């Protein structure tokens, strides 16, 4: 099977948006432009935004749009080269040495090499998309390592020599902005800040993502969530939570709760902080009624 090349899929920002919508992801004009530019300029795409606005989902949709596999590298404090680049399978090497006895054996053969996400992508840049998720959680050292990888797309393995990508891989980075990323990293990327969508778009997203939610419900949820986000909460609800809320309320309604009541009882999937809950509880009835009106 031959995959469509990136250029033929991404002919214009509108084409990208259409393809994304086919993968059940609604991108606004700004995001689809950024994706289009990242693909065509051959630069990594850096997506920043609050938790739950669909950064990771965007990466999944891009992989689907290009018909490629998504290789995900989840960052955390203390991640290092052995987790991101490659690792030798020592146990297997030892066994092989035992087994070989008098014979000569190359213990740096491919079968002893465990490819980690970055190497996996490098080996097949045209079949895979790399997602470096939550890069703000990693430490500065790892950011520097990644910077080197992103500029040359090559990895040096002392025992094997340098492995280069045959084509420019597509890379997506996401960050929750819990700390500032290095300027050098931002500079090298096409950048997009994903904000919360407006009520109309959010309703459309809920319709697309949730199981079977009536349009009126989706609109009401979107309006209520907008109004909840405007309050000073410790953790404002993301889009994913809004979708869950619409789902949960629909299930409760089918179970026999009337509408405003169903929304109120399902609030636990939208707001997951005890203090926020007690803050919003007295106003919730009014917010839901206004949204339903």
């Amino acid at each position: 099977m031959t995959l469509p090349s990136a250029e033929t899929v991404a002919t214009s920002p509108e084409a990208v948006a259409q393809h994304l919508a086919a993968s059940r992801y609604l991108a606004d004009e700004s995001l689809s432009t950024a994706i289009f530019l990242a693909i065509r300029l051959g630069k990594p795409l850096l997506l920043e935004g609050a938790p739950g606005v669909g950064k990771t989902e965007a990466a999944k949709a891009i992989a689907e749009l290009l018909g490629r596999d998504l290789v995900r590298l989840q960052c955390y404090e203390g991640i290092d080269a052995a987790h991101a680049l490659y690792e030798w399978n020592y146990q297997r090497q030892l066994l092989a040495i035992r087994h070989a006895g008098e014979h000569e054996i190359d213990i740096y053969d491919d079968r002893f090499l465990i490819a980690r996400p970055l190497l996996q992508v490098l080996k097949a840049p045209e079949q895979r998309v790399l997602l470096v998720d939550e890069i703000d959680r990693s430490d500065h050292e790892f950011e520097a390592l990644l910077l080197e990888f992103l500029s040359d797309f090559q990895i040096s393995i002392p025992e094997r020599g340098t492995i280069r990508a045959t084509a420019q891989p597509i890379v997506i980075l996401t960050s929750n902005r819990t700390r500032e990323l290095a300027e050098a990293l931002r500079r090298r990327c096409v950048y997009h800040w994903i904000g919360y969508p407006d009520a109309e778009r959010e309703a459309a997203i809920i319709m697309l993502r949730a199981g079977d939610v009536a349009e009126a419900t989706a609109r009401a949820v979107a309006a209520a969530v907008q109004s909840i986000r405007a309050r000073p909460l410790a953790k404002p609800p993301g889009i994913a939570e809004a979708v869950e809320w619409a789902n949960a309320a629909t299930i409760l309604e089918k179970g026999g709760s009337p509408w405003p009541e169903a929304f109120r009882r399902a609030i636990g999937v939208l707001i997951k902080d005890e203090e926020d809950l007690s803050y919003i509880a007295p106003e919730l009835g009014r917010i839901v009624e206004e949204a339903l009106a």
Partner: protein
Amino acid sequence: MRALPRAATPLLGFGRLLRRYGFAIAPEQVSGFMQAVTLLGPRSMADIREAALATLAPPPDRRDEFEAHFQNHFYGNTSAVVEGDADEETRIKDDGGASQEQIEVISQQEGGELSSGAEQLSTRDFQRDDDGLAAFRRKLASALPARRSFRTVRTHSRGKLDLRRSLREIVSADGDVPSPLLRRRQTVPRKLLILIDVSGSMKLHTADYLKLAHAAVQGADRAEIFTFGTRLTRITSALRIRDRDQALARAAAQVDDWDGGTRMGPTLLAFLSVPRFSAFSRGAAIVILSDALERGDHAELETAMRRLSARAFRLSLATPLAGDPRFRPATAALRAILPDLDDLVDGSSLAGLTDFILSLARPAPAAATIWKGVS
């Protein structure tokens, strides 16, 4: 080499304009911008705007400013000045991405509130304090409370077997088993968060506190400094400048609410509502330098302190009022927040304060226990 087409000149000029206003724009970003515009057509001004946003990457908190410059440059619309709306919301200022080019411009500014703030900084300059601060800076990194990191370090004793490295040794020794190698989990210093009250009632002390904050930023790997009065301002990036006078002048210029009133509760809540700020407070040693004289209702202050204390490793309040031996936590606000505090200490002298911060790693009885005895 091909000459650039005439139409590209405004694009180049826009990059230069942004740089002049302290956006960090690299040459490769400008060329990326021009490539992007070519790729997109451009069919409309909207395309140019999208290309600029994607390639020049303005920090999200300076987005409005960026938009205004864009309007100004490409539409010649000079009336689109960035003007913050003065509403009830607590305003947050974070100058993370600004480059150092701004320093000169700011140090030339004279008159008005800014210079009064700057003057104050230079009045109380005692040699003794300086020596104390230099020592504080040297000791800070090793004195901060530590936590165990996910990362491990090699060790020769008191560790667990490092299987991966040992096996690698064995492979390179062709199957011989040399002495096993050990590893241990590393300890890293916790984050230090200092929140400085710059309201009128703290006027005498803010200059000292800023010096302390500068020493803390220079000494510790991960320290964040905020000032609060009626607004919340992040001044960490200004204090990263090594030269103290320059750093303090820059920080002084960033703070807009010098010697004003206090809205401690709302500003602290504003701090907590920005995810990346509140993420910084998680597991951190938080030191609040304030007299906690909250005007009016203290319910918000109580909520904010409870949330902070739930996130923090240790929450301390240093108040200059406690320098008086007759001081008791008697105000309604202080009594309400006392159960949430790990320490309530004297913040009137720089020496006492540096000693206290250096002792944060050592356990101490909770503030409520200490002050119950005396009141």
